[in-house]
């Protein structure tokens, strides 16, 4: 039969060695030795890494808070922007940013997840065009944001799409910019769903889309949420491409998503203020950073909640 000719002698030799070792093993308590030391060093390194990150973050926030302290007040959220620092607020820029991000999320989630699903679940990896798409997405992630600005100006604001200098055009530009982040994160999440789950679903007569929709996607929500969090975080802080596609620094009225009256965005304003000569504006810029973090946290809170809710372990 398929089994090997069992030679008891083989086993005996083996057991002899085993016995020798087993006799010495006795204590259950921690053996002082290389492994323990290594493990401790490793753990210390892990904590150090986390500490570095948290400390860095804290330092940035504290620095912004201290610098911005004189200007910090709730009025920052309600006052429109002004060229007079004492009455300047971020309301109009804030609304512009909220619209921008809303547009980014609405665009990037379906497109990003859709592309990820296509690549992981439908695309035949051996086909050159699918490999090309894969390469192309990774490559897009490395294109500097200003190039997206140039692209947005040429193809979205003008050119084929001809949207004009409206918030939606800015959203679309930013969405293209952060699309690779969402696609890559979503792909990894989808890839991590064990094949046996797909088999189980397909074997019940579910179509491929039903399998994706009801098994794969729910299981990959945490990873997708991470991608969206990172994407939104990046989109919210981008300045350069927005300048090109029409975000202005000075808007005293509340912008609308499709209106072409002009709009502003927080980072554009912050950048502009930060490079002005007057100290008051630099203070305002720091305060703006705090405003932006508050907004960012509020926006991400939902994604974080979603991610925690769907977290699971196979």
């Amino acid at each position, binding site marked *: 039969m398929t089994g090997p000719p069992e030679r008891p002698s083989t086993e005996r030799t083996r057991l002899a060695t085993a016995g020798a070792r087993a006799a010495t093993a006795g204590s259950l308590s921690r053996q002082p030795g290389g492994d323990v030391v290594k493990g401790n060093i490793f753990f210390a390194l892990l904590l150090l890494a986390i500490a570095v990150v948290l400390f860095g973050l804290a330092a940035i926030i504290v620095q912004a808070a201290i610098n911005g302290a004189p200007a910090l007040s709730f009025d920052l959220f309600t006052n429109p922007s002004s060229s007079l620092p004492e009455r300047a607020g971020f309301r109009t820029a804030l609304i512009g940013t909220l619209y921008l991000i809303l547009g980014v999320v609405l665009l990037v989630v379906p497109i990003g997840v859709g592309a990820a699903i296509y690549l992981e679940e439908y695309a035949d990896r051996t086909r050159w065009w699918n490999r090309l798409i894969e390469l192309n997405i990774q490559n897009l992630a490395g294109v500097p944001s200003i190039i997206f600005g140039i692209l947005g100006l040429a193809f979205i604001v003008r050119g084929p799409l001809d949207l004009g200098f409206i918030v939606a055009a800015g959203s679309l530009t930013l969405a293209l910019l952060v699309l690779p982040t969402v696609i890559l994160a979503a792909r990894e999440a989808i890839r991590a769903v064990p094949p046996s789950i797909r088999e189980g679903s397909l074997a019940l007569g579910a179509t491929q889309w039903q399998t994706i929709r009801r098994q794969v996607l729910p299981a990959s929500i945490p990873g997708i949420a991470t991608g969206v969090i990172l994407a939104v975080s990046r989109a919210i802080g981008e300045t350069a491409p927005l300048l090109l596609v029409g975000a202005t620094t000075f808007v005293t009225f509340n912008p609308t998503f499709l209106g072409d009256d002009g709009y502003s965005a927080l980072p554009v304003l912050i950048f*502009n203020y930060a490079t002005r000569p007057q100290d008051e504006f630099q203070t305002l810029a720091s305060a703006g950073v705090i405003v932006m973090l508050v907004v960012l946290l509020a926006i991400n809170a939902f994604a974080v909640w979603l991610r925690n809710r769907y977290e699971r372990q196979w």
Partner: protein
Amino acid sequence: GSGGGSGGGLSGTIRIDGSSTVAPLSELVAELFQEENPDVKVTVGTSGTGGGFEKFCAGETDISDASRSIEPGEEEACADNGITTSRLTVANDALTVVVNPENPVSCMTVDQLNQVWDPQLKLGSWSEIKGLEPSFDAELTLFGPGTDSGTFDYFTGAVNGEEGAQRSDYNNVGEDDNQTVTGVQGADGGMGYFGFSYFEENEGKVKALEIDGGEGCVAPSAETVRDGSYVPLRRGLFIYPSAEALRRPEVQEFLQFYLYRVNDVAAQAGFIALTGKQLREAQSELKTLLGSGGEGTAG
């Protein structure tokens, strides 16, 4: 301003874009204008003089802020799109050369500045500058704005005789002139230059050099700029309205308002106000433009 202001029910949107140097002035004027005309929306962008003209010549903005004059190529592009424009000077600036407060030198000639910034000489120390009084020995640490800026072009043109003809081995601070302050403050032999407003805000941290443009040492100030004695580093800042847009009443009103109020607010925004002569010139330019816009003839 409350509703039903004195503007007589003007409404519409006025788009301004261009140099980030000029933007604070346009913003301030725009803010005041909107107080009187609450239904007019004015936006000010900062995509740079070049970027501003590009949009302007594509007919996408009404007014372009500029820290330099429009170039022939840009003018052509405007003409291709049927856009006529004319330069209105709205404020003055004094490019200010700053050094460390500890530096004993207080005045330099244009030639000495040229030595410092000359692309060939590449001086390494203050002591190598010919004819400098009092003598000073420290390593030259140079700071300058981004080479894409109008400030760079103007300074190099005035000091080195040709735009861009400057040594490149200096600390380029890019977009944020505040860094020149930090840098010069930190280096004994530091030297840098930027717009007057940066100096005004940082007096004490850095020292402004007097410039000898041939007729003795002159310190940069509002007065020396206005009386024309601060040469050659005084420059004008401009706006370029489009004749096309000037057919719209709100734009006409805005530009007239601009020139009417600009001298009151220039100092507040960190600029040096126009002289009476400059202002009159600007006003007559605007009239010409209004005329051509009204006739609807272009190019």
